[in-house]
């Protein structure tokens, strides 16, 4: 069954759709930018792109059984994360590059379709090209280039059909049934119920809360030696993308966002170990008061407690993390204060410990997951919210421990930033920002850290610093994680209640200046500069 979008016919938009489905990412981006220049609204183009991709971003499962009987993971759709991240990142950038994140999302989207087929080397895109290296296989080699780059030689597959809304019944009851259906993996039922509720404006705030809740509680206990049996927070990240994009596009125009996100919430595998653990533990610890902790607990973490939280999350075993969160809650510390402390713990790990460029990627997911949880804590009320503090802290701790399972490589050691301190001190604040942009772009972490440290100490100005880091992020292509990192960093920086919120900017800087990049190419940025006739300091 196909459910038609009510958009009016437009040849230019049709062309964009054709280029996207053909996986022609440079062509789609060029056309997209051309339409922006003609005055098309970004939301309309974004909506058109999401409309055309929605049927092609589902997976039958996120576990694939291989021929030898063993299982592997199947990547989650990232196109919707790219759109969400880029739309929000635009606000942090100067006017001349404010559309660049959207261009990056467009550049990425045609490369991220039908992941299942990409893994089978049956459709082009960045998973087939870069992750599976299909083009290197004997049977797929071509005389020139890589056929898994683009264009597509067939259409992407639809792995889950669109559905009709399920209407009628009390809102409370349907929300409950929707969560239950997600947890049981009944995608048709959960998606149908969601569509029915989404059509009722008075139910939307509760629906947003519920869909975030459904994503947040689906989080694995550990990724250590689990291969594909994990989701590294993607259910929550997708739920947040839905909430933001539906609000931005308007709920009446967001059907394709729903189609992109909601069925996948119930996709296999689903993980409720931490949810189960906290559901058993909290009544034991807090009796009937567990559900009222958000209202009851109002005090902030002390500096010493922040230190303890950092030390425990970064260096201790999961049992110690659980015990500390319980102790802080018993001590009356507010949920948001603890959540903010967990963010700082993650940042200290990035700043003080991470060295190898490949080691940033997975822990970065836990930061984005924490950002979703914290948004949920800040925006909505749910009696289960105290449980999410355990999810956050244990998730961050687990990904750190997963990295710790690999011996440290001395070849990846980063020189001490203090070597560049004198140089940083010799620059004016404006010069520091220019140098910081360059150091992050060319990935010189010690220099970048010295520069950001000096800037943070020298001045209280943060808007231009954030714009500088966002600008660096916006030039990095083929990777929606970067837009997400930028957006999470900006939001957490603005909301963090601790005295150490500048650590978020330090950690963001180090990530940009050190983490491995999917592509060193800046083709999208070059195209953007040509189309808009602009010059910037970045390459």
């Amino acid at each position, binding site marked *: 069954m196909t459910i038609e979008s009510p958009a009016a016919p437009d040849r230019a938009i049709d062309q964009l759709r054709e280029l996207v489905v053909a996986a022609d990412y440079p062509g789609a981006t060029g056309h997209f930018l051309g339409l922006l220049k003609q005055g098309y609204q970004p939301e309309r183009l974004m909506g058109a792109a999401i409309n055309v991709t929605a049927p092609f971003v589902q997976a039958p499962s996120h576990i694939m059984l291989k021929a030898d009987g063993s299982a592997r993971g199947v990547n989650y759709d990232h196109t919707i994360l790219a759109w969400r991240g880029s739309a929000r990142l635009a606000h942090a950038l100067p006017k001349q590059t404010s559309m660049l994140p959207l261009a990056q999302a467009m550049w990425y989207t045609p490369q991220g379709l039908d992941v299942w087929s990409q893994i089978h080397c049956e459709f082009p895109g960045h998973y087939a090209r870069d992750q599976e290296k299909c083009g290197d296989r004997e049977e797929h080699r071509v005389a020139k280039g890589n056929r898994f780059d683009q264009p597509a030689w067939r259409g992407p597959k639809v792995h889950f059909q669109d559905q009709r809304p399920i209407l009628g019944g009390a809102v409370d009851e349907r929300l409950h049934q929707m969560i239950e259906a997600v947890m049981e993996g009944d995608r048709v039922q959960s998606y149908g119920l969601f569509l029915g509720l989404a059509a009722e404006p008075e139910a939307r705030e509760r629906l947003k809360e519920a869909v975030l809740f459904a994503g947040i509680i689906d989080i694995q206990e550990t990724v250590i030696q689990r291969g594909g049996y994990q989701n590294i927070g993607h259910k929550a990240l997708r739920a947040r993308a839905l909430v933001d994009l539906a609000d931005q596009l308007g709920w009446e125009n967001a059907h394709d966002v729903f189609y992109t996100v909601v069925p996948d919430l119930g996709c296999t595998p689903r993980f409720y170990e931490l949810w189960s653990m906290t559901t058993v533990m909290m009544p034991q610890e807090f009796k009937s008061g567990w559900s009222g902790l958000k209202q009851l607990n109002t005090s902030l973490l002390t500096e010493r407690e922040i230190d303890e939280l950092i030390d425990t999350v970064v260096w201790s075993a999961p049992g110690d993390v659980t015990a500390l969160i319980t102790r802080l809650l018993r001590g009356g510390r507010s949920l948001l204060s603890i959540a903010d402390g967990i963010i700082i713990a993650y940042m200290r790990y990035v700043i003080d410990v991470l060295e190898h460029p490949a080691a940033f990627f997975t822990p970065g997911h836990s930061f984005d997951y924490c950002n979703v949880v914290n948004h949920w804590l800040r925006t909505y009320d749910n009696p289960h919210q105290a449980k999410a503090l355990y999810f956050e802290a244990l998730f961050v701790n687990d990904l750190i*421990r997963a990295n710790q*399972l690999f*011996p440290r*490589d*001395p*070849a990846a050691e980063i020189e001490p930033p203090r070597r560049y301190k004198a140089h940083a001190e010799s620059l004016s604040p404006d010069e520091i920002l220019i140098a910081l942009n360059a150091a992050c772009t060319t990935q010189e972490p010690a220099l970048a850290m010295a520069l950001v440290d000096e800037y943070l100490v020298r001045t209280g100005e943060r808007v231009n610093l954030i714009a500088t880091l966002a600008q660096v992020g916006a030039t990095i292509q083929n990777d929606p994680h970067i837009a997400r990192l930028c957006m999470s960093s900006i939001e957490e920086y603005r909301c963090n209640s601790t005295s150490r919120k500048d650590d978020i900017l330090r950690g963001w800087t180090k990530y940009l200046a050190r983490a491995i990049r999917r592509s060193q190419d800046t083709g999208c940025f070059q195209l953007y500069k040509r189309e808009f006739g602009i010059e910037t300091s970045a390459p």
Partner: protein
Amino acid sequence: MTDLMRAWKLRNAVVASLELVIDEVDERLRGASHVELIEFVDSFSPARASGPEWVLTFDRLVEQLWGSLAAADVAELEREYRQRGPIWAAVANSFLPERGNTLREARWRPHGARRAAVVLR
């Protein structure tokens, strides 16, 4: 005895025990065969380690190996792990002479201290 004095006495007792343990490990490393050393170093791999806490002490083992073994013995370890391929690069790189030099240069013996400083974990 005051609480502070008792705490300081406890600290000194642990220091004495720790020095004995470090000497014991040093003796064992010196006496180990190449095969025994390989088996021991292998226990720090993700598949064999008892958990992250074990692997986290790998840097400390590397420091002690450079202090206990002859350069030629460390070079043999480097050869063994280098030929296992890129996945073992972090381990092989720990046994390069440059790493040994860096660790020697980083050794710090405070004025008046009985021994060079030791990082515990």
